[in-house]
C-alpha cells in the first residue's frame, strides 16, 4: 500500500464524515426545504465517493454511475421543490 492509496482512503474517510454530518442535519432539519438541500448534499457526497473509488480501483467503468447519479440528483431535488410548491397553494 503506497502513499497515494493511503491519501485516497483518507479522502474517502473524510467524505464519510461529511455523510454522517449531513444525515444529522437531515434528521433534525426543522422544515422540508432543509431536508431537500441535505438530500442535494448527499448526492454530491456520493458522487465524490464514487469518483475516489474509481481512482482507487483503477476500473474506469464506475464513472458512468456518477454521470447517472448527477442526473437523478438534479431531477430529485427539482421534483421535490415542485411537489412542495404544488401542495401549499
Amino acid at each position, binding site marked *: 500500500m503506497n502513499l*497515494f492509496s493511503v*491519501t*485516497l482512503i483518507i*479522502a474517502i474517510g*473524510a*467524505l464519510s*464524515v*461529511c455523510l454522517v*454530518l*449531513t444525515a*444529522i*442535519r437531515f434528521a433534525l432539519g426543522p*422544515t422540508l*426545504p*432543509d431536508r*431537500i*438541500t*441535505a438530500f*442535494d*448534499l448527499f448526492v*454530491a*457526497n456520493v*458522487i*465524490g465517493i464514487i*469518483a*475516489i473509488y*474509481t*481512482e482507487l480501483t483503477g476500473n*474506469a467503468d464506475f*464513472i*458512468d454511475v*456518477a*454521470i447517472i447519479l*448527477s*442526473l437523478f440528483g*438534479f431531477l430529485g*431535488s*427539482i421534483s*421535490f*421543490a*415542485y411537489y*412542495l*410548491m404544488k401542495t*401549499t397553494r
Partner: protein
Amino acid sequence: MLEKLDLLLVREIISSIFILTGVAFMLISTIGLLRFPDFYIRMSAITKGATLGVGLILMGLGIYFNQPSMLLKVLVIVSFTFITAPVAAHVIGRTAVQNKIPFWDRTNLKELEDYLQKEDLSEKESDIKVKKG
C-alpha cells in the same frame, strides 16, 4: 534530468492535491450545513462549496487517468453539475420564500420586501389586464 522524471508519480501528486482540496471544500460546506442559523444561509453554503468540491475531485480523477474518454466523461459531469446546482438552489429558495420559511432575525430584508411589494402590484395589474381582456 527530464528523462528520469516518473510521469505516473507526477500525476499521482497533482491528483492527490486536487482531491484533498475538493474534500476540504466538501467538509467545510457540510460543517456550514450543520452550523449555520438559517435555511437560506445553509443553502448558500451548500450550493457554492459542494459544487466546487465535486468539480475539484472529478478534475483530479481526470488528471490521474490520462485518457481522452475519461476526461470527456469528467467534463460532462462537471459542466452538468455547474449548470444544474444553481437552478436547483434557485427553485428551492423560491419555494421556501413562498412557503414563508422564517429568516434569521439579523438578515437585512428591506430589498426583499420592496421586491415583494412590487411583485404584488404587478400581479394585480396583470390580473386587471386579464379581466379587461
